[in-house]
């Protein structure tokens, strides 16, 4: 309620402006940081890792781009490729550089560019050092899958290990393994926390429970059942084999690391490194909208409060609004600039709307969000959302009719068996839920990546590895790329591999791969 009062009648500006020109220096950064921190602590109640702010040049920003922003990374040609691409785009003026890069680590590393004006530095600090930082520290995906305190150490280890392997076995050999592992990177993550190995005590207890159960339910009648010939017995073998190999397994890299018969120890370790890094980035893929939305909402609130307090001038606030609006700009689908849904725009719009619903809900909002409509504690609701959702569930839970109307979202169904594309739902009463559901699925990483699992291995025969792709809605794999990836996979496995695309029990497509130069 206190918030509402503040919002309704902003206190007369009391503070001195932190800066007036566009120049900044290190003491000013500290001062700005202090001012932001005060608001973040007292009003938004953000909980962040300690920050480490690093000032870099545009050249260094390009370097950082190449290695996915990480301050240290092992060497691989693909990073050079990204570097060359970004450099070309940047030099030709087709693409500006990011104002900042932030790394999910503790301390949280924030790169800021020296070219930024004082206003931009303030914005960047609010956005990255507070918004992203809070999200990294609190969101359950990050908590579950990443260890912020040790990632830099791990990267240092990885870089060192790869370099050592290159010295010992040659760049080309290392490159072969890394190329293959990179191709499978999207299928090298655990999507669910694994089972813990059972300790002896609980194992014993379980055995006893089972025996007790068997004794209790003993019936001599079962003994008299006729045994079926052969068939089931062979199935038992297959079952047992799959069980021993831990199949089916959707983490292909994990499976290869543990089971590929012809890999040397160092090659397994390289696969493990790629796998660990894929796992580290997995939460970021799951939370694009939320992560950017959280940071954008946070910077917007913080900057506005600073302006209300008179800590930044009207001119600086206008400069901020200019870049803020271009960040949250969502081109429409028929616009030339359209390149998918802008996660900044969607995230920001939804979070602003959550705040509105919490403070001044309409009748419709009360019907859609009975849990928190009008509860008054907007930041509390937001903090809860930031902590416990990812894009898919966040959209499903919080996308309000108001946002759907504002963005004029509509849902298309494109069935290749029909001649036309059908407009299934639009922003009307009948459409809200369908649009919301469809958009939520669109952000589901589990649906974006095809569901491919290692299904079986022909251990008794030619050791062919068999993978299944569970086809959803008839969308099959891109055949050209699949063949290339299978080739890499076959190289790692050491023998032939086969990928079956299965829909409703029918094989709709099959791809094969053979090793060209199996590692040994």
């Amino acid at each position, binding site marked *: 309620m206190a918030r509402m009062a503040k919002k309704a009648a902003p206190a007369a500006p009391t503070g001195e402006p932190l800066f007036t020109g566009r120049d900044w220096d290190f003491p000013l950064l500290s001062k700005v940081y202090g001012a932001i921190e005060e608001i973040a602590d007292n009003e938004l109640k953000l909980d962040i890792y300690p920050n480490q*702010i690093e000032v870099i040049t545009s050249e260094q920003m390009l*370097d950082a781009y190449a290695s996915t922003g990480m301050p240290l990374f092992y060497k691989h040609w693909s990073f*050079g490729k990204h570097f060359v691409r970004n450099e070309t785009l940047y030099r030709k003026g087709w693409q500006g550089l990011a104002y900042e890069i932030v790394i999910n680590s503790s301390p949280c590393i924030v790169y800021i560019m020296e070219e930024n004006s004082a206003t931009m530095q303030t914005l960047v600090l609010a956005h990255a050092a507070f918004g992203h930082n809070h999200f990294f520290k609190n969101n359950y995906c990050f908590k579950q899958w990443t260890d912020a305190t040790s990632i830099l150490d791990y990267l240092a280890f990885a870089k060192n290990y790869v370099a050592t392997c290159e010295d010992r076995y040659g760049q080309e050999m290392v490159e072969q393994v890394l190329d293959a592992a*990179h191709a499978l990177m999207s299928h090298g993550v655990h999507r669910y926390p694994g089972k813990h190995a059972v300790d002896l005590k609980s194992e014993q207890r379980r055995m006893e429970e089972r025996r007790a159960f068997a004794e209790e339910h003993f019936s001599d009648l079962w003994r008299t059942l006729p045994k079926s010939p052969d068939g089931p017995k062979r199935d038992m073998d297959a079952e047992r084999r799959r069980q021993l190999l831990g199949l089916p397994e959707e983490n292909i890299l994990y499976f290869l690391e543990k089971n590929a018969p012809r890999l040397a120890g160092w090659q397994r370790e390289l696969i493990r490194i790629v796998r660990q890094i894929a796992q580290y980035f997995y939460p970021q893929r799951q939370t694009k909208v939320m992560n950017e939305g959280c940071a954008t909402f946070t910077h917007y609130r913080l900057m506005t409060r600073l302006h209300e307090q008179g800590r930044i001038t009207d001119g600086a606030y206008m400069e901020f609004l200019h870049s803020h609006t271009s960040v949250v700009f969502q081109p429409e689908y028929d616009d030339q600039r359209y390149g998918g849904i802008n996660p900044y725009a969607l995230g920001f719009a939804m979070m602003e709307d959550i705040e509105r619903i919490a403070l001044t809900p309409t009748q419709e909002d009360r019907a859609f969000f009975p849990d928190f409509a009008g509860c008054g504690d907007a930041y509390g609701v937001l903090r809860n959302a930031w902590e416990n959702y990812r894009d898919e569930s966040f959209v499903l839970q919080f996308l309000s009719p108001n946002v759907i109307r504002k963005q004029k*979202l*509509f849902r*298309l169904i*494109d069935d290749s068996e029909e001649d036309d594309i059908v407009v299934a739902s639009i922003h009307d009463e009948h459409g809200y839920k369908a649009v919301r559901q469809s958009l939520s699925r669109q952000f589901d990483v589990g649906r974006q990546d095809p569901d491919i699992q290692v299904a079986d291995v022909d251990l008794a025969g030619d050791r062919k590895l068999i993978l299944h792709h569970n086809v959803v*809605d008839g969308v099959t794999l891109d055949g050209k790329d*699949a063949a290339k990836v299978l080739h890499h996979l076959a190289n790692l496995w050491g023998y032939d591999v086969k990928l079956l695309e299965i829909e409703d029990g029918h094989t709709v497509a099959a791809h094969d791969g053979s090793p060209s130069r199996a590692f040994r």
Partner: protein
Amino acid sequence: MHIIDRRPDPGGKSLANRQRFMRRARALVKQAVREASGSRKIREIDGGGAVTIPADDVHEPSFHAGRDGGMRDYVLPGNKKFVSGDRIQRPRQGSGSGSEGSADGEGEDNFRFVLSRDEFLDLFLEDLELPNLAKRQVMGDAVEKRHPAGFKTSGPPASLSVGRTMRRSLSRRIALKRPNPVELDRLRRELFELETSSGDGARIAMLRAEIERQERRAKVIPFIDPVDLRYRRIEVTPEPIARAAMFCLMDVSASMDEHMKDLAKRFFSLLYLFLTRRYKQVEIVFIRHTHEAKEVDEETFFHSRESGGTVISSALIEMARIAKQRFPPDQWNIYAAQASDGDNLSSDNARSVALLRETILPMAQYYAYLQVGRGDFDREDGVFARQETTLWRAYQELVRPNLPMAMRKVNDRRDIYPVFRELFERRDEPAET
């Protein structure tokens, strides 16, 4: 909160990655460089600059959904006129709203590499060499090779050999029994002790005398004497080098149309570029001929026009004359490249062949004949194979293994570079047709 200034950190963190990428893409870049030469103007071949390689070949594959087939369901922003149930015609393949495509896989265009002139030419001329560059000989102004040859007693301070000087100094000091400073020190200490304890007077006197004698001796026998000094001796021997002369013979007669002249000039400019870049010691002689031949300078050769009849032998005679006058074959490696459309005066063919066989080929290391054709003609493998020119047939009779002669045909600008490579590719066995 800490603020760290990273700006002074050494840059180029991605350099190693960029180099790896270049290495991986090297074959592609090389190909792109070579293809670029076909489309460039003659003057620009020597320019460096950007080449484009297809992104396809440095593509990183992954499992992902294909573009078509199946049922897709997606949400777009910015509805203007649709109501639910509307049917929209499917946009044509490749264009259209294409939201799915851009949402999951970012599009990749081709890569542009900006190469420096040196990088460009290095890739361009890789693996080329003049065949059979065999005759080597010591020349007056030839390259000199310097190698160490013992020591001498005088020389500039820069060539003083400290090790050798000190060794001689040490042996002299030992031979002349220069007092050892450690020994002298010991005597002084003993004297000092005796004096402070006022001990044996005779011993003191003896010590004093001995110390004085030794000090005098140390002064007389210097630590380093001018006789110790030794300087490194460098001997200079002339290095036999291979000198080569390349004769460029170009037909500029009226039968050569613009296209053919362009081909010939392209060929020679590649040759010129290759020779000036790779060999310091190559003389290039430009001869152009119609019914008469003339030696001209580079500028005239490439850029001026002339026309007339065709007498090939005139160029061969001119070449033989110049070679005899300026490049005696026992001292020079002689190369020749001839470009013509093959339309020779028919009575001249026998003469040309005889000249080649008897005069030119015996003195030449390699003779390359390039026949330029009209671009619009069917290739020789076409349905109606073009009849060979008389000159081509005459030359073909001449060609046999172990004769340093090669002949090729070029009809199109695109073929110039591959043919050029074939003619001058590094190889182990002697050139054959």
